[in-house]
C-alpha cells in the first residue's frame, strides 16, 4: 500500500503541465534517437544532458529517462520498415520484422512491437514501484563495506558480461577510476593527478567524458559507413489476425518475464534480452523453420524483452545507486549533476522526485504507444532525413553542450580527446561502459573503501567478517571465475561489445 500511495502522489507531481511537456519532449527525442541509425540512446542521452542544466531536476530526469526508454520503441520502426536497426537492441527485430514487412504486413510487426514494448515497459515499472521500498529498506542497512562489495560486484558483473576480454574490461574500469580521481581530493583538500593543469582542478566532468566516449566516438565511427536508406514499406493493419493473438500474447508474456529478470543483472543489457528472447521463442516453437521468414513471435518476444529489460535496469539504479548499463550510467551522471544521488536515500530524502520520475515513465509509455501505433508512418519518414543534414547538427549540438557544462572551451577540447580515445577503445574492443561506470561511481568506491578500512583500523578483514559484504564478494569471485572460464572457452562472443550504444 505504501508503494501505491507513493505512486499516486508521484502521478500528481508528474502530471503538472511542465513535467508532462518534458515527458513528451523526452519520449519524442528518444523516438527520434531510436529511429535514426546514426545515433544511439547512450550518445543521444549524453549529448542532451547539458540542455537540462537550467531545468528543475524532476523535469530534467523525466526528460532524460524519456529519451532512454523512448529509444527502445523507436529502434523497431527502421528495423521493420527499412531493415536497418535504429539502435542495437532492435538488431534481432530485422530478421522477422522486415520479412513481415516484405510480405505486406509491416503494420502487424509494428503493432505487435508497440503492444509488446508497452506491456514489457509497464510491467517493469510496476516491478520498480513495488520492489523499490523493500529493496531500499534493505540497502539502508548497508554500511561502507557492504556498499564497497556491492559496487565491486556490479562492476565485475558488467565487465564479466561485456567485452571479449576480462583484461580489457578491467583496464577500462581502472581508467574510469583514475579519471574520477583527477582534481581536488574531497577529504584532504589536496590536488591529485592534475599534472599542473589549472583546468583539471575542478576534476574531469562526467558529462564531458560521456559525450566524448559515446557521442564523438560514434560520430567518428559513422564517418566510416553511412547507410544508404531504402524506401520504407507501407504500414497497414496494425493488429494481429484472429489466430495470431494467442502466440503473440504468449511471446509477449515470456519476453516480459525474461527481459525483466535480465534487466536486474548489471551488464546484461537490452541487446542480450532481445537475443535471449529470440533464442527462447525459436527453441520452443513448434515450427522453428518459420523463424527468419516472418514469424510474429520473433518480433513480439524480443521487442517486449528489450523494453522490460530497460525498465527493470532502473531498479538497481533507483534502489541501490548501481547503474547496470551504459545509458543508465549516463542517467545516473545526470542525477548527480542535478545534486541527487540515486540509491536508498533517494526514496527518503527526495521521495517526491523519485516517485514523480517513476510515474512519468508510466505516462511516457502510454504516449509512446500512441506515437507508435497510429504514427508509425510519420516516424518512418523521419528516419529518411539524410545523415549529411543530421551530422552538422549533431556535431554542433555536441560542442555547444560540452561548452555549457562549465562555460569553458577547454572542456570542448577534452571532449574531442575523449572522442578519439573512445574511437580507439571501440576499435580495440575495450568496453567503454566500464570506464563510464567507474567514473560515475569512482568517488563512492574510493570513499567506501577508505571508510571501511578506517573502521577496521586498516585491516581488510572487515570485508570478510561482515556477512552481507562477504556474501557479495563470494558472488563476485564466482562471477569472475565463470567469466575467466567463459573467456577460455570462447563463450563470450555473443555478449561482446558495448552493444547498447
Amino acid at each position, binding site marked *: 500500500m505504501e508503494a501505491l500511495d507513493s505512486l499516486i502522489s508521484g502521478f500528481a507531481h508528474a502530471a503538472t503541465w511542465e513535467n508532462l511537456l518534458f515527458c513528451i519532449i523526452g519520449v519524442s527525442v528518444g523516438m527520434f534517437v531510436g529511429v535514426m541509425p546514426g545515433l544511439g540512446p547512450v550518445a543521444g542521452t549524453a549529448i542532451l544532458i547539458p540542455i537540462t542544466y537550467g531545468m528543475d531536476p524532476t523535469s530534467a530526469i523525466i526528460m532524460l529517462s524519456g529519451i532512454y526508454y523512448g529509444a527502445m520503441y523507436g529502434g523497431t520502426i527502421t528495423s521493420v520498415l527499412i531493415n536497418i536497426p535504429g539502435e542495437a537492441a532492435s538488431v534481432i527485430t530485422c530478421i522477422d520484422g522486415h520479412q513481415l514487412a516484405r510480405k505486406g504486413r509491416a503494420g502487424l510487426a509494428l503493432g505487435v512491437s508497440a503492444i509488446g514494448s508497452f506491456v514489457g515497459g509497464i510491467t517493469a515499472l510496476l516491478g520498480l514501484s513495488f520492489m523499490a521500498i523493500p529493496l531500499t529498506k534493505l540497502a539502508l542497512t548497508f554500511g561502507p563495506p557492504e556498499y564497497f562489495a556491492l559496487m565491486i560486484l556490479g562492476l565485475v558483473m558488467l565487465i564479466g558480461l561485456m567485452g571479449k576480454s576480462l583484461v580489457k574490461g578491467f583496464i577500462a574500469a581502472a*581508467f574510469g577510476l583514475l579519471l574520477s580521481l583527477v582534481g581536488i581530493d574531497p577529504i584532504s583538500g*589536496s590536488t591529485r593527478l592534475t599534472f599542473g593543469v589549472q583546468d583539471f582542478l575542478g576534476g574531469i566532468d562526467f558529462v564531458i567524458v560521456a559525450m566524448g566516449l559515446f557521442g564523438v566516438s560514434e560520430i567518428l565511427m559513422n564517418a566510416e559507413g553511412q547507410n544508404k536508406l531504402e524506401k520504407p514499406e507501407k504500414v497497414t493493419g496494425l493488429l494481429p489476425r484472429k489466430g495470431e493473438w494467442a502466440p503473440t500474447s504468449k511471446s509477449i508474456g515470456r519476453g516480459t518475464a525474461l527481459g525483466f529478470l535480465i534487466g536486474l543483472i548489471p551488464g546484461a543489457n537490452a541487446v542480450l534480452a532481445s537475443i535471449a528472447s529470440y533464442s527462447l521463442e525459436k527453441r520452443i516453437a513448434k515450427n522453428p523453420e518459420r523463424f527468419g521468414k516472418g514469424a510474429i513471435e520473433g518480433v513480439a518476444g524480443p521487442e517486449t524483452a528489450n523494453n522490460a529489460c530497460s525498465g527493470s535496469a532502473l531498479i538497481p539504479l533507483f534502489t541501490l545507486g548501481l547503474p547496470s548499463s551504459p545509458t543508465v550510467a549516463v542517467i545516473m551522471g545526470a542525477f548527480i549533476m542535478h545534486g541527487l544521488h540515486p540509491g536508498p536515500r533517494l526514496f527518503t530524502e527526495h521521495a517526491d522526485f523519485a516517485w514523480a520520475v517513476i510515474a512519468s515513465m508510466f505516462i511516457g509509455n502510454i504516449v509512446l504507444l500512441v506515437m507508435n501505433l497510429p504514427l508509425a508512418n510519420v516516424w518512418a519518414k523521419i528516419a529518411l532525413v539524410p545523415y549529411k543534414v543530421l551530422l552538422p547538427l549533431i556535431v554542433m549540438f555536441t560542442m555547444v553542450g560540452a561548452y555549457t557544462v562549465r562555460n569553458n572551451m577547454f572542456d570542448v577540447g577534452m571532449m574531442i580527446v575523449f572522442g578519439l580515445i573512445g574511437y580507439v577503445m571501440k576499435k580495440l574492443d575495450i568496453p567503454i561502459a566500464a570506464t563510464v561506470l567507474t567514473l560515475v561511481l569512482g568517488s563512492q568506491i574510493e570513499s567506501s573503501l577508505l571508510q571501511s578500512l*578506517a573502521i577496521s583500523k586498516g585491516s581488510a578483514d572487515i570485508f570478510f567478517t561482515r556477512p552481507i559484504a562477504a556474501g557479495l564478494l563470494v558472488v563476485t569471485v564466482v562471477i569472475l571465475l565463470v567469466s575467466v572460464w567463459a573467456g577460455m572457452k570462447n563463450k563470450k562472443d555473443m555478449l561482446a561489445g558495448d552493444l547498447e550504444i
Partner: protein
Amino acid sequence: MRNAGSWAAVVLLIFSALILWQSLGMENQNALGFGPGFFPFWLSILMVVLSIAYLFQTRKERISIKEMLPKNKALREFLLILVAMALFVLTAEWIGFIAAGTISVFLLVYRAFSKGVAVGFSIGISLLLFFIFVKALSVPLPVNSFGW
C-alpha cells in the same frame, strides 16, 4: 610493431607509470587515516599490471593499425570532422559562436551541397543554435566583441 593493441598497451603502461609517479608525491597516510595518495597508488599499480597483461594478450590478438584506421573517403570524412571541431575550439572565443559555428558547419557540408546552399545551411544552423541556447534557454555561448 604494427599491432594497434600493442601500441595501446604501451601507451597505457606509460600513462600508468606517470600516475604512479604522481601518486608517489602524495601522502599515503595522514592524521585522518589513509591519505590522498593511497587509492591512486594502488590503482596505478593495478593499471601497470593490467597493461603488461594486455601487452602479452595482444601477441595473440592482432589488430593492425592500418586495419583500424579509416581509409580513402572515410578517412577524409573522419579528418574533416576532427578539423571542423578543432577549428571551433580554437576560434569560437575569438571570432564568436556564429562565425566559428558557420565555418565548422560549412566544412562538414560543403561537399554534400552546392556552395550557395552550404553557406546558407551553415549560417542557418549556427543562428538557430545561437537563438535556442542564448535567447530561449539563456545559456551563455562564446561571443565576439559584437555580442555574437
